[in-house]
């Protein structure tokens, strides 16, 4: 079986790749495109470590077939910071020590950013349910939830015209 040619927009740039018909988007991101920030913790959509944005919606890239990405827009953890400037969610993860081993962190940051992009003022409960698809085994979630709430507060401030 010959490989499939796929054209996408990846972190803002046009990108093309060849893939097997059944390759996952995660496989292609990690092995073909060299973007190993998205992690595979389970391969079955149960841990969220591979979370990416697909046409503006967060998905588990392990549950997307690579050929499905044709013509779509993909954003990964590698595109969250603007150049060297961290996104407030990234900055707050650092300030709150919201990571220990850091393996689940990219998925959490992509998911948290997706939440704050549509809900600038989430409650703790909303944050917890939104992030329920992202497993963290190190932190007990406490500092992650605090970091997200604090990032939301920062973003609200930023958005408020002076």
């Amino acid at each position, binding site marked *: *079986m010959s490989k*499939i040619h796929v054209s996408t927009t990846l972190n803002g740039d046009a990108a093309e790749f060849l893939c*097997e*018909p*059944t*390759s*996952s988007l995660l496989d292609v991101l990690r092995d073909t495109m060299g973007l190993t920030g998205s992690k595979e913790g389970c*391969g*079955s*959509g*149960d841990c*969220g470590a591979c*979370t990416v944005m*697909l046409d503006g*919606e*967060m*998905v*588990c890239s*392990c*549950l*997307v*077939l690579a*050929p*499905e990405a*044709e013509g779509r827009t993909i954003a990964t953890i590698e595109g969250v910071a603007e150049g060297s400037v961290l996104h407030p969610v990234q900055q707050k993860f650092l300030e709150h020590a919201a990571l220990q081993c850091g393996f689940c962190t990219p998925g959490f940051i992509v*998911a948290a950013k*997706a939440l704050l992009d549509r809900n600038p003022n989430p409650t703790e409960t909303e944050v917890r*349910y*939104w992030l*329920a*698809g*992202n497993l963290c085994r190190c932190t007990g979630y406490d500092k992650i939830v605090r970091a997200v709430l604090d990032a939301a507060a920062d973003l609200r401030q930023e958005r408020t015209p002076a």
Partner: protein
Amino acid sequence: MSSTVYHAPGTVEDAVALLSADPTARPLGGGTDLIVQMRSGRLSPGAIVDLKRIEGMSGVRRLGDAFAIGAATPCTALKADAALVAAWPGVVEAANLIGSVQVRNRATMAGNVCNASPAADSVPALVAAGAVCVIAGPQGLREMPVEAVPAAPGKTALAPGEFVVEIRLPPKPAGGGDAYLRSIPRTEMDIAVVGAGVSLVLDGEGTCTSARVAMGAVGPTVVLVEEAGAALVGTRLEDDALAALSQAVQAASNPIDDKRGSVSYRKAMAGVLARRAALIAARRAGEKA
């Protein structure tokens, strides 16, 4: 090397032709069941027919006061349709209990129906709501009530070459309300140990004039428990009516013991959840539309 072919047809006819050409071919909507099954080796389809490039396959359409939900519509998109949420909140909630936000951004109700899991969350709600699947196949289009689609765990009543193109929900009846509840050990990211969907209509006096109760994970397929609906009709959901409802769903429950729950616990939860869902549905029915 993978022997699976990927297709992304642009029309229903092309999709039917591709599915008809290979009996092992599988339609791909959200992929949240299909891809997991392929990865685990449980399934190796000869072809994958991605439905998402077919026009009209994604999104909610209004048919008068009724709704047509394209087969490739992700569950989270249902929440964005205010009219649908107002009419069938139980269905929308049920669909939005599946997996995580990431999963629901991909998973579809049509896929949930066709995966034919007895524990599918959206199915009891759809069955209670009286939803119908519109099915395309070599013979053209036909309709089938949702409860008739799953035939056994992992098997559907669809003929070769057929696939669900949309799910239709009737208009919300005057005085109608629906609800879905499930029991899971965690708060999210779980498969229903038991699920209960209730849709009912109350008259101006608060008396139930019709009710449909559907239960998940208490048998090989989601079951519509007619006796349970009947137990509510003519009552105002007083305690004894609710007790009769619980008794009816328990009598209709024939669950298995497995890693997700025991027979006795599933039966007990069926009674509790049906009662709780009925009360939520009734509250919604009593609210001004």
